[in-house]
């Protein structure tokens, strides 16, 4: 039975080493674990060693060598989930399931596990159950869900609501997740007939002309790093290679980010058209959408959209009637690793390997997927590209500020009235944003997720733009009831400990040391030199290879910079434990009593 699953998964992906991720995910999803036998069969068929297979399995959060239960529950433990009542939900799960988090119940039916942000920060607490999303969990719902599991009900049939009624026309998606689009801008508007650019404009334009238009728009990558998109395409166009690839990064793992989930749900055709335009520009024949495992519930729906596009000659051969322009898109699932949002780690993962970032140079535009020139773009970037081609680069560059052109889709969560998705022009201040989402009594806001900065009211006049506050779009708002150090900074630091790939020494070893120091301070045992240590250790993080390593200490470093008083308050009790023993002072009293003079 189990071996059948293994063999059929291997056959389905043509015994291809590069598809190891797909094979492992298929087995995991069907058997709820990957057995030693499965590992042995895969290693034989794919001509890999056992440790080759195991190194990939053990890297990803959602792959396991131990049975995870017939129903595997991953409850989000991100900060927003905690703020919205995770604890009582988790306790109810434990009581009802009869096991603790990190365990599988004795009967093997239910497994309870923690997981990092699943892209539902506007509808927490939320959980993934066998790859399906359950939002707005309450003790009542938990009891209901566990009861359903005991009767063996299909997970897809456990949903009880019918939400939104948006344009995605999928009854299943509508019953599972809300979209909460609170503000549409030019990228998210629904005033566009998908395929228009491919059918009407592309045939009249050379790839170079398309790249020129994108350069005119001045759009920069929307994932957070902000590299100019037109330039990236140009580098890839001129790079030498028999085959080129366009990869779409839909691995938004930065806690508090969920915009790509909404775009994938409501505007998949826009995204795929953007990939086609990019493919045409750089000369690619294949596009891959790297979809985070947390959004696996969208895969079938997205594949239908691809099939529809093939039927309309928007994908396939001679697309849009352009002779020789052949391009198709496939979906690659991730398996739970924040680091795979880093473009070179994402490429490694698509190749079936551990998601360890590569050394650069060479950059992916020269040597990326399969060692071929590759462009990796964010979901939002590729959607914006379609609108740029529709209305012109000049139009796009008139939006936002002269340097930071266009719009940005923000993900607002935490303590505010209207969490959700807001597409706004660059240049808004934090005050504007807080007013827009109905947030009052704000103690702090986390801009750009844990890898960004924690900033306080004195900086709320700062602007969203590439020269001031750059962000991939995550905004988490904290009111004065939140304990920033204990609940926020510690949670983010745990997140980075969990998500470090472990390759660079300063990343894998420093973050736990940062955490120990923070815990020492929180327990009231900190001394002034601990704060100096934290500050000076920060520089070492800049020697790491990738963005995760560079920013992993940001929760501590930015809170120390902007909320130093919170740390200093904790030192109060610690004053008497000040390190550095002062002998003169220590013996002064006895010297005085004996009228002796210290002889040192």
């Amino acid at each position, binding site marked *: 039975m189990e071996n059948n699953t293994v063999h059929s998964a291997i056959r389905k992906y043509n015994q291809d080493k590069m598809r190891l991720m797909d094979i492992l995910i298929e087995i995991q999803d069907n058997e709820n674990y990957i057995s030693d036998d499965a590992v042995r069969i895969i290693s034989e068929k794919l*001509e*890999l*060693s*056992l*440790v*080759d297979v*195991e*190194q990939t399995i*053990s*890297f990803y959060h959602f792959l396991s060598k131990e049975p995870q239960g017939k129903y595997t529950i991953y409850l989000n433990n991100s900060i927003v989930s905690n703020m919205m009542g995770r604890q009582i939900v988790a306790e109810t799960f434990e009581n009802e399931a009869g096991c603790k988090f990190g365990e599988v119940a004795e009967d093997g039916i239910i497994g309870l596990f923690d997981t990092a942000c699943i892209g539902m920060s506007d509808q927490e607490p939320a959980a993934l159950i066998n790859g399906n999303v359950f939002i707005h969990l309450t003790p009542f719902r938990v009891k209901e869900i566990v009861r359903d599991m005991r009767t063996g009900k299909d997970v897809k049939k456990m949903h009880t609501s019918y939400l939104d009624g948006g344009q995605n026309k999928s009854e299943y998606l509508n019953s599972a997740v809300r979209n909460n689009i609170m503000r549409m801008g030019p990228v998210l508007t629904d005033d566009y007939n998908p395929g228009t650019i491919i059918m009407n404009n592309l045939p009249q334009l050379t790839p170079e002309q398309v790249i020129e238009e994108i350069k005119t728009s001045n759009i920069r990558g929307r994932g957070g790093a902000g590299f100019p998109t037109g330039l990236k395409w140009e580098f890839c166009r001129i790079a030498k290679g028999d085959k080129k690839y366009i990869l779409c990064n839909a691995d938004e793992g930065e806690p508090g980010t969920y915009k790509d989930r909404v775009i994938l749900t409501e505007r998949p055709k826009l995204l795929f058209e953007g990939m086609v335009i990019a493919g045409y520009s750089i000369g690619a024949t294949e596009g891959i959408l790297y979809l985070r495992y947390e959004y696996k519930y969208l895969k079938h729906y997205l594949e239908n959209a691809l099939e529809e596009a093939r039927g309309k000659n928007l994908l396939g051969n001679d697309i849009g009637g352009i002779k020789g322009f052949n391009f198709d898109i496939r979906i690659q699932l991730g398996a739970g*690793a924040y680091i795979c949002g880093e473009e070179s780690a994402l490429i490694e993962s698509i190749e079936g390997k*551990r998601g360890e970032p590569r*050394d650069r*140079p060479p950059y992916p535009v020269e040597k990326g997927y399969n060692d071929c020139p590759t462009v990796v773009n964010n979901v939002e970037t590729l959607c914006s590209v379609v609108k740029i081609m529709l209305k012109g680069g000049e139009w796009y560059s008139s939006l936002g500020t002269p340097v930071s052109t266009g719009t940005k889709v923000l993900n607002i969560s935490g303590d505010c009235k209207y969490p959700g998705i807001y597409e706004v022009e660059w240049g808004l201040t934090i005050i504007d944003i807080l007013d827009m989402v109905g947030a009052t009594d704000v103690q702090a806001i986390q801009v750009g997720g844990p890898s960004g900065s924690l900033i306080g009211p004195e900086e709320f006049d700062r602007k969203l733009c590439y020269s001031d506050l750059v962000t991939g779009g995550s905004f988490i708002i904290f009111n004065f009831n939140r304990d920033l150090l204990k609940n926020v900074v510690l949670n983010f630091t745990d997140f980075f*400990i*969990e*998500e*470090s*790939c*472990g*390759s*660079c*020494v*300063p990343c*894998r*070893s*420093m*973050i*736990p*040391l940062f955490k*120990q120091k923070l815990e020492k301070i929180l327990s009231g045992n900190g001394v002034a030199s601990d704060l100096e*240590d934290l500050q000076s*250790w920060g*520089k*070492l993080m*800049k*020697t*790491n*290879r990738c963005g995760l390593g560079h920013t992993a200490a940001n929760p501590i470093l930015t809170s120390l910079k902007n909320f130093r008083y919170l740390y200093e308050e904790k030192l109060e009790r610690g004053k008497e434990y000040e390190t550095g023993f002062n002998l003169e002072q220590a013996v002064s009293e006895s010297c005085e009593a004996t009228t002796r003079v210290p002889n040192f």
Partner: protein
Amino acid sequence: MADIINFTIDGKECVAEKGISILQATQENDIYIPTLCNYEGVKPKGSCRICTIRTNGQFATACTTPVADGMEIENNTEEINDLRKSIIELLFVEGNHFCPACEMSGDCELQALAYRFQMMVPRFTFQFPKRDIDAGNPKILMDCNRCIRCKRCIRAIKDEKGRSVFAFYRRGENIKVHIDPELGSKLTDELAEKSVTICPVGAILPREKGFRIPIGQRKFDHEPIGSEYKH
């Protein structure tokens, strides 16, 4: 004839062939940059970060970054050397390195670097992690207490089909090196020897052969690591 490019290191004018790494270029100019995960003949990985230099305001690893014309490199500065020293200290606190009891003492690159950078007491707290010793292989012994997870063995030791004999397991602080139970048990004498020599510390040891080189005759017994370079 290869293109020749000019670059400076700590202000000193140097020349190098285009396309080689900063590390190779500096070594050819008789300048020392400390390394640990790098090994001649094995594709560099840049994971220990000890060869960190600064160019154009950014830190980069000398082993993986190609030298370029006009590059200005900062290498032997107080700031960069302190960063390197702190990485060495990190390696000492993240593992269990008891030099006096280690059979590789004197031949160990980590120990030698600690001497060269005059490490006394690490600025970080010792973690004393619980690590495994794998004695299941007929030819080699793997002591994870000493493993610095530099990936040298992972990168260099493959079988004739290119399959890994050593590989990482898990991620983050819990990452560890595993030996393949099947390929490992069939390891040739040659590959077993290679895996012992390639390990910069005492994590991979040959079985049934203790103290092959007497103390006093070991690599770093008389001269610090990097002494072959003038600067």
